[in-house]
Every structure is written in structure tokens, then in C-alpha cells.
């Protein structure tokens, strides 16, 4: 087994463990490369099927191509696709692009709050109806007790502290200082009523591993990751008002891998194009409030 085989096997094991142990389970799909690799790993784990609902939080400021991509593969791969949103804030234009609040508050409203209430079932969930090929309001309102998230330990300091199975209390709070032990491959799969567990199958992957796996498996990813002639590409995808492209000539996956290994990005943080991280407190403050 090479290093990608080992990473794949461990992620598949974690996904199967989650599927076995959690009755109400979902997987967050941000449409980015990491959670798309995670979705692919689910197809590996379940032999071509994805028996876990996929949840996307639509901020309505996502780059349009991301939504097209989401819906195309939701249909093609027969996914149980669900999205949620913060309709109140969007209707009231309480967003950063509308000029009414700062970036971090905008993230909190459009992502963290929307996610929290979509997971709990308090806010409407929209499910892809494969016959009508469009979203309908989902009748299922059961809270998800297991949430599979594609964070990687190498992304940023706070994420390096995560467990594969990480408990959150009823207020979504992550007690970094008091986490359960994980012995060998035995994880925390028992949880008290009212709490939930976040599951992190990609924890050991690096940005480079992700691209190497995309190359090996020929996983389709959003074309925004590639330079399409203008000499720019996205390294990390988010909402268009807060995500900057990077200058790059990389047009193919092997070129991206080369760029990460020895080229211009070998020593620059991946999320450097995400403006919200630069604000005071940044990602860690967001994560404590339930940001993924």
C-alpha cells in the first residue's frame, strides 16, 4: 500500500464506522476539493453508493459554477442532496456584501447559524427530488447526531487539534482541552442525548495528498481551481466577495501538485486567499461558534 492507499483505507474505515454507529448521520459537502474527495471516499466505502445525506449550506454568494457543479453530480451520482440557508438574514440584506455588517459576522450568519439550524432541523431543509430534478422542502426534520466534515489537520492551527470523532455539546461547543481518547482505531461512537459528534475522515490528509488523490482517481472538481487562461485560479473556494484568486499558471491537476510540492505555493498557507481568516480572532473564533 502506498501513502494514498493508507490514507484512503483509514478514511473509509472512519466513514463505515460512522455509518454503522450513527442513526442520524449527514455529510457536509462544501463543493470544495476536500469535501468532494470525502464524497468520493464515501463512494469507495459503500461500493459506489452514498447512503448518507449530503448537506450544503448555500450562502447565495457562492460562485455560480459551484452550485451548477453540485446539482449536476447530485443527480449523476444519485445523491441524497440537501441544502439549507439563512433566509431571514438574506431577505433583510444583513450581509457583508450588502455593506451592512463585517466579514466575520456575515460568516457567522450565513454559514455558522444556517448550518446549526439546518443540522438541528429547526430551519427548512431543501432536498433534491430526483424525479422532478429540483429541490423540494424536505419533510425530515430530525436533528443529525453525527456530522461528517472534511477538515484537514494541516489546514490551520486549531484543526490540528481535532479528533477523528469529536464530540460537541448541545450548544455546538468544542471543548478543546477535554477531548475523549482515541485508542488505536476505536473512536467515540457513544454519545449522550442532546449532544452530537463531528466526524473527520480527512484529518490526516494534506493539501498535496488531496490533489494527488484527485489525480489518481480522476475525480471531477470545479474548474475554478484551474487557470483557464487568465493566469489566475482559486486555491480555496468560498463566497465570491471574500475569496481571492491566486496568480498561477496551473491548468491541470499535475501542474497544481507540482506547484504545491516545489513551486510558488510550497510555503504559503492554503487559506491565505480567505479574507475572513485575517480578521481578529479569525477562523478559530468562527470554529468555536460551529463553523466548519
Amino acid at each position, binding site marked *: *500500500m*502506498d*501513502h494514498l*492507499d*493508507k490514507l*484512503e*483505507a*483509514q478514511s*473509509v*474505515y472512519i466513514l*463505515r*464506522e460512522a*455509518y*454503522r454507529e450513527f442513526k442520524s448521520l449527514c455529510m457536509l459537502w462544501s463543493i470544495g476539493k476536500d469535501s468532494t474527495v470525502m464524497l468520493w471516499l464515501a*463512494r*469507495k*466505502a*459503500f*461500493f*459506489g*453508493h452514498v*447512503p448518507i445525506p449530503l448537506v450544503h449550506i448555500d450562502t447565495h454568494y457562492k460562485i455560480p459554477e459551484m452550485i451548477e457543479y453540485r446539482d449536476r453530480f447530485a443527480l449523476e451520482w*444519485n445523491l441524497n442532496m440537501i441544502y439549507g440557508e439563512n433566509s431571514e438574514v438574506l431577505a433583510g440584506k444583513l450581509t457583508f456584501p450588502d455593506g451592512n455588517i463585517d466579514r466575520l459576522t456575515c460568516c457567522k450568519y450565513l454559514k455558522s447559524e444556517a448550518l446549526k439550524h439546518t443540522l438541528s432541523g429547526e430551519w427548512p431543509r431543501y432536498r433534491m427530488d430526483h424525479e422532478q430534478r429540483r429541490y423540494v422542502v424536505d419533510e425530515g426534520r430530525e436533528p443529525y447526531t453525527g456530522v461528517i466534515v472534511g477538515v484537514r*489537520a*494541516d489546514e*490551520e*492551527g*486549531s484543526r*490540528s*487539534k481535532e*479528533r477523528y470523532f469529536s464530540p460537541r455539546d448541545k450548544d455546538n461547543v468544542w471543548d*478543546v*482541552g477535554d*477531548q*475523549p*481518547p*482515541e*485508542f*488505536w*482505531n*476505536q473512536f*467515540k461512537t*457513544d*454519545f*449522550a*442525548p442532546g449532544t452530537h459528534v463531528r466526524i473527520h475522515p480527512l*484529518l*490526516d490528509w*494534506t493539501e*498535496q495528498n488531496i490533489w*494527488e488523490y484527485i*489525480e*489518481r*482517481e480522476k475525480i471531477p472538481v470545479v474548474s475554478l481551481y484551474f487557470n483557464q487562461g487568465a493566469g489566475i485560479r482559486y486555491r480555496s473556494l468560498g463566497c465570491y466577495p471574500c475569496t481571492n484568486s491566486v496568480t498561477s499558471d496551473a491548468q491541470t491537476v499535475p501542474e497544481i*501538485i507540482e506547484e504545491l*510540492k516545489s513551486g510558488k505555493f510550497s*510555503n*504559503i*498557507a492554503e487559506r491565505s486567499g480567505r479574507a475572513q481568516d485575517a480578521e481578529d480572532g479569525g477562523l*478559530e473564533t468562527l470554529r468555536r461558534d460551529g463553523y466548519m
Partner: protein
Amino acid sequence: MSGRAQMNIVIVGHVDHGKSTVIGRLLADTGSLPQGKLEAVRESCRRNSKPFEYAFLLDALKDEQAQGITIDMARCFFKTAARDYIIIDAPGHIEFLKNMITGASRAESALLVIDADEGIKENSKRHGQMMSMLGVKQVTVLANKMDRVNFSEEVFEKLKADYTAFLAQINVTPVSFIPVSAREGDNIATISERMAWYKGATVLEQLDQFTSDKELHEKPFRFPVQDIYKFTRSNDDRRIVAGTVAAGTVRVGDEVLFLPSGKKSAIQSVESFNTAPKQQTSSGEASGFTLTTQIYVRPGELMVKPAEPQPEVGSRFRVNIFWVGRAPMIRNKEYKLKLGSARAMVKLAEICNTLDASDLTYSKSKQQIDCRDVGECILETSRPIAFDTTSASETTGRFVIVDNYEIAGGGVVVENLSAGETLLQHHIKERENNWEAGLVRSEQRASVNRHRAKFIVFTGAAECGKRLVAKALEEGLFHNGMNAYYLGLANLDRGLDADLRSHSDSAGERLRRLGELARILTDAGLIFITTIDDADDYDIETLKLLNEPNDILVVNMGENGFSCYQPDLQVPDGGAVAEAVSLVAGLLKIKEIILDYQI
């Protein structure tokens, strides 16, 4: 594509002995830090007027910096010419033992850091022992802060001798000892000129000499069944046995045996998604199989090859355990055991001895296992599970114990003790010795009822028609003037067993309650009839035991799923209900349970 090898290493040792500094050094000296990180930390130190430390590089979290101790396992990555490393920083502070375990149980090798000036401390010892129990075989000891002891060879040799003597008591032999100064960089990436007396490898050289575990796939095949998948709704009729190969290799066509159920089949195919067709699979691979026959197996069984050395099957075993739970481990409390893919209710049956890792003293008198104790004890599961002793196969000889939703302890199985009296046998003996009988004897009851009492269990696949037969039998016996009663198990779920939804071993407890109920109803003279889907040998043996001293009669419908147990009657499925009923009634007559039966 980079085919570079990767290795997980863990850095352990007593608090303040310099683990984080070693890591900071390894990152900096291999050029593995993000651009500008080193400068940023130096700048922040300058602004706050405190001396720069390599340890600060790891202090990614705010509250960690505030406390000044590494609170959790952080992961970081560095590369040498030989391979990529993932360092798992394991905190030395005693409060964070469970974080240390989490880190170390994923590591293939360890660096154990001891402050040469301060010497061997409590966690130097405890961590050394933990490495051994966790199965980390390659341990190198770093005698750190050599600059504080004037790079003295004498100090180093003394520490080496003392610590080697300690490790020898627990049968651990370290790979090497290296004198270093992580702060100054001596013997980390480059050999130190200030310790010319030292002729060994630098830390980086030593790391590159560690080997990855290659032996596993040559061991007997072990496959803990993680789950059974059938995605019928997505038009997929494959019934796939899924899991990760713990050891050994299996090929298409190989005979396989499932334990503890004892069912046999053979590999029809190795399943996978988006790969070339596979003919075999080996240790470490997350795999799936279809079998040549449709047998009913459950998650938690261990699939092995009958031709190879067999694992143990049992419910009572001697273990080495370490406890990290808030509450101590006590006797007669129900815990949940997770071993491989098996889950079972478990009780602490006996404490043989406990070891205080800080001073290596044994105690034989402790009545409980406290947090941070290492103990040898006897555990007993509610039903048999398949496992290996740790000396035979490490990966299937490890377990954890869950107490109140939390993993509270972990350990390794040393010996199978299943020949002794089980807790269940003991329970039944106690129950029968103390049974308060009424004044009516069972023979009197039988003579008035004109039939004897019996517990009749129908089993077979779900929906094989056994419930129809069971109900028809009840009706037939009733019309013949007998006291027969049919109980649907679903009624128990909503009644007697309604509290079991969140029970740690709901299946085991359901079975126990059914057996106890049968004991009462047969004592009342009834012919008590029920049905169980796919009962296995263990289920029936348990019911039989619980129903003692009264009798049980087992009718199997359709394919026989038992491995050894011989049902009293085999009835074909899909036949007429009346025929099946008269077969059972005929047997009841032969066994003199009833005298006559008229249709």
C-alpha cells in the same frame, strides 16, 4: 506522483522535558515550516520581551499559549530525504494522559524525551510503559537539555543505565539513546561537536532508520466484520461483508469461517469501487466481499480462514488494562467493550493486581482500578467474542472499555479463561438455589393440565413463516385443551424491554429477559411459544441455560443457520402451515409433553 513513504511518530515524556522544543527544532531544521512562520514567532517574542523558544512554533491555539502547556495532540508534518513524517505531539502533563494515548496509539515509533538535568520522572516511566502496551515497538530515548549538564558523558551514561534498568522490568528494549540539546540543535539534524564522545546517529538519522511494520500481511488472516451492506433500493443486489483487514491475506475462492457464530462460506468476490477487479486483499486494506452462500452474519464477527491458526473464542479473559476514566472501574458494573468490530457488555470480574506506574509498585489488594492505574484483571463479556491474545496477533487483541458514553480504558488480552464458570452460570446457580417455590409441584400441575410445560422456540430467517406456524400451534394446542401461550417479541420491545433502547448491550439484555420470562412461564406450567429471527448457537445456549431447570424445544424453519447446535426439529419453509404444526405436535407427543393432539 510522489510515492513517498510516510510514518507517524509520537514525542512523549514528562512535562517540561522539552517535547515541543524537539518538535519545533525538527520542523525548523528540515525546512518544514510555512514561509515566515519562524520570523513571525521571533518577532512576537521580541515584542513581548521574552526569549524565543522553538516550542512556541507549536502553540497554535490561544488558550494553549495562555496556559503554557501543550493541551492536546497536535499534528505537524516534516520531511527528510527518506520519507514524510507526521509528528503527533503528545502532552506530558498528567491531566492529558488520554491525549497522549490518542497520539501514541497511532504512532509507529516514538521519541521519549527525558530532561538530562532533572532526570527520570513519573511520566518518563509511565509513558515508557504506555508505549509498550500501546504496541509502539520502536522507541528512542532523547536525553535532552544536555547543555544544562555541560554535555557530560557521565550524566548521559547514568541516565541511560537507570532508564534501561527500568525498561527491562517491563520487557522493553529501546532502539537507542541520543544525547541532545533541542534548544541549541545539538544532535537533532546535525551531529554535535560539543559531544564528540557520542558516536551514534542524530535524531533525524535515527528516525530514517526506523522501519514500518511489514509483517502483518504474513500473519493469519483476520477480518473484523464492520458491517453488512445491501443497497437494494439503489438496484444493487450484492450482499457485501465490509471491513478492514486486520492481518493476513485472503483470495477469491478461499474458505472462510466466521467467529463466534461458526458459520462457514467462501469468498466469491473482492468488491471495490473505481479500481481494477481484485483477486485478493491484505492487511490494512478497507475491503468488502461477497460470499458463495447466503449465510447470515452479523457485524462484530471475526472472519478467518479455517486452514490457518484460529483465534480464541470466549467470554472470560485475562487482560492488561489502563484506565483513564473519571470514575474508577469497579466490579459488577456494566461497561461496553469494543474489540475489533465486536461490541459486548462487559463486567470486571476480578482484579489480579494493579501497578502504580510512577513508582512501579504492585498492589494486590485494590478493590477498584483508578484513573491512570495499569492493572491486570479478568473481564467477562455477556456473550462470547472472537479475539486473539496480544502475543498472537496484536491488532485483534486490543480493546477499549466505554463507561457512560466515554472511552474510559483500553487494554490487551493476555489469556482466554473461558473454561471457568461464567457470570451467567453463576447467576443461574444463585437464582435456582434461592428460588422460592409455591406449594404446587410441577408434576401436580402437569397432571391437572394433562400436559407438561415446555418453552418452544421457532427460529429461521426473517419472514420464513415461522410466526404463522407458531400462532397456529398455539391455537391448535389451545383447542385441544392445553395451556399454550404465544408471545411476539415485538410486544416486549414496547413493554418489558422499552427501557433498553439506550442500553449498552440491548441485544444481550433482551435475550436475558426473554430467558428469565421463559423460566417463569414454564414454571407456571405453560407451553410457552415464541419466535426468534436467525438465532445462533449462543442465543439458544443462553436461553436454554436461563430456562433451566425447565425444558426448551427448538424448531428451525428453512435453512439451518446453526454452526454446531442441533435443533430438535427441522421444518421446511414455504410449506403448508398445518403440516408444520402437526410435525411439531408429533414431536411433542413423542417427547411426552402432550398426550394427544387432534386436528
